[in-house]
């Protein structure tokens, strides 16, 4: 992969007694589309602000393209930001907003015109150049904010919840736009979100944060299929978390089933994604090797078009199972006993203390 473009090394920040970001180490490579994902208040914006230069870290070092920028101000960093809420200049037109950064750097007018033109095409703002930014829609403002940052050709583009203020439909189309733009200019994007779908849909790498800590970092597939903690598994997509106990290499789930699992003795949580489970009626037939079975009662069955969603009650828990849609006749009826089956390779056993 070569040398990382951005290197955060033990970077931390506290506001008085509140630690917004604990010492955090993260490498970002050229061309990456990184999502920083986490619940509200976990320190995402603080992390992004440290990258942009608005917040000076209490400790650690920030390197961009081999240069230590830890103490360089935001105006002299090779980063540009798309702000939460856009932060457009309300007294300027669309064109003036987009051109601002180049004007500061005293680019010749002809080059400014050219590059503004490119940006306007890239983000599909043609015809709106002379409008006041207060007189365009939210989605269009979003594009202006994006163009205003991208025109600077930053080494790293930072986006703080760029789509949070848009309605669902617009958000989906802007996601596609962002992906297209990232591909067409081949830049390095770091964006912050608390929407896991957005993170999964856009990023090639996800960094999950919680309470100022970087809990896990990896590709979306990795994070989804092998969450390192219960928090990650809950945060990323739906997950069934089954509490249990491991004694000398055997896990016994509270819901009443057992399987072998290496590790130290103690309480564990077994995480299984709903779509990794299936429902059958074994009627006492033996189970195949490498599979886990659990008995339960169907409490809810919903047809969702592309799949069926079942809620199955097991002792002390309710499990969600997604199965491919089936004909009306072979659905599992309400209040019937069923067997929930999954492959052991699809489960994650996490120590919980």
């Amino acid at each position: 992969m070569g040398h990382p473009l951005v290197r955060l090394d033990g970077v931390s920040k506290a506001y008085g007694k509140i630690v917004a970001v604990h010492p955090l180490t993260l490498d970002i490579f050229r061309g990456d589309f990184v999502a920083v994902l986490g619940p509200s208040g976990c320190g995402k914006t603080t992390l992004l602000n440290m990258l942009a230069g608005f917040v000076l870290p209490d400790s650690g070092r920030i390197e961009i393209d081999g240069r230590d920028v830890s103490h360089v101000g935001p105006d002299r960093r090779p980063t540009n930001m798309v702000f939460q809420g856009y932060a457009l200049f309300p007294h300027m037109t669309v064109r003036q907003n987009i051109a601002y950064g180049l004007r500061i750097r005293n680019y010749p007018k002809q080059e400014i015109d050219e590059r503004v033109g490119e940006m306007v095409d890239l983000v599909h703002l043609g015809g709106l150049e002379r409008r006041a930014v207060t007189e365009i829609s939210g989605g269009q403002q979003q594009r202006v904010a994006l163009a205003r940052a991208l025109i600077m050709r930053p080494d790293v583009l930072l986006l703080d919840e760029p789509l949070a203020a848009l309605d669902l439909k617009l958000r989906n189309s802007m996601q596609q736009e962002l992906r297209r733009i990232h591909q067409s200019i081949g830049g390095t994007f770091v964006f912050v979100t608390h929407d896991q779908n957005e993170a999964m849909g856009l990023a090639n790498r996800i960094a999950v944060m919680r309470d100022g800590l970087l809990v896990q970092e990896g590709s979306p597939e990795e994070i989804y299929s092998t969450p390192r903690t219960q928090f990650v598994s809950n945060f990323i997509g739906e997950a069934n978390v089954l509490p249990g106990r491991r004694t000398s290499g055997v896990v016994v789930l509270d819901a009443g089933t057992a399987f072998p699992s290496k590790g130290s003795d103690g309480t564990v949580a077994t995480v299984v994604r709903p779509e990794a489970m299936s429902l059958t009626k074994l009627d006492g037939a033996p189970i195949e090797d490498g599979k886990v079975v659990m008995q339960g009662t169907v409490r809810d069955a919903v047809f969702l078009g592309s799949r069926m969603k079942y809620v199955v009650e097991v002792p002390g828990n309710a499990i969600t199972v997604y199965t491919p849609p089936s004909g009306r006749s072979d659905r599992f009826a309400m209040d019937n006993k069923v067997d929930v089956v999954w492959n052991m390779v699809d489960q994650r056993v996490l120590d919980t203390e």
Partner: protein
Amino acid sequence: MTPAIRSRGWLALPYLTVYLLVFVAPLLYFFVISFWRVRLFRLMPDASLANYAKTLEAHSVSLIFTFEIAFTIAVIVTTLAFVFAYVVRFKAGRYGTPLLFVVLIALFGGYLTKIYVWKTILGQAGVINSALGLLGIVNEPITFLLYNPVAVVITLSHYTLPLAILPIYGALRSIEDMPLRAARDLGASRFRVVWDVVLPQCRVGILIAFSLCLIFAAGDFVTPLLIGGPYTSMIGKLIQLQFGFHGDAAMGSAMAFTVIGICLVVIFMVGTLIFTVFRVR
């Protein structure tokens, strides 16, 4: 406009009546008589520009001097007011509100009180002289502090500063923080942010502050009288003499409207300048 709103227009009626009666009517009256003349202490209707001609002829020195002082005050005060309002809005954090409160308290101090405060500070037995005497820097009290144009500038600046801070602060309050950050992010120095983002958005507030100071300083006659000394002949003093001592309301009105006219011209020019210099590029 919806019918509901239109039908409430009458709510403005009392206000409009008072405004017309106590402000517009007297002003119109004085404007009309500025074209009359006074014969044997009686106002005679006329339609001549003689009073205006005489104003420019006999009082041009005083007019120029007045507007030099008023302009100086307006520029100094508007600048200070901007700096103060800027600090309160963007830099002082939670100390901003207390600072603003101090400004409002300063407004309560009466006009004459402030004049006498400066008399006390600058006078022969005043604070500065006592301090200098105590420190043994001077033997004789220094006299050049008071009774000159500089004393007038200081006193009037002190008085008009809160009046100038409020409109500018009002304008700064509606400016959001995030676009300032965005400007920094796009490469603007702190100074460029103020120049490109803050100033263009508070041009009206600045012009209002400037106008208030200019009008107040140009029309004032008490401060020059009490602090300006014999050589500070500002036009306000002379206008007051016309109405009082000379009993020539026609001439006084013409002089007053000349001052108003010059004020409007200066405000228009300064406004044009502000709107050009701090325009959006």
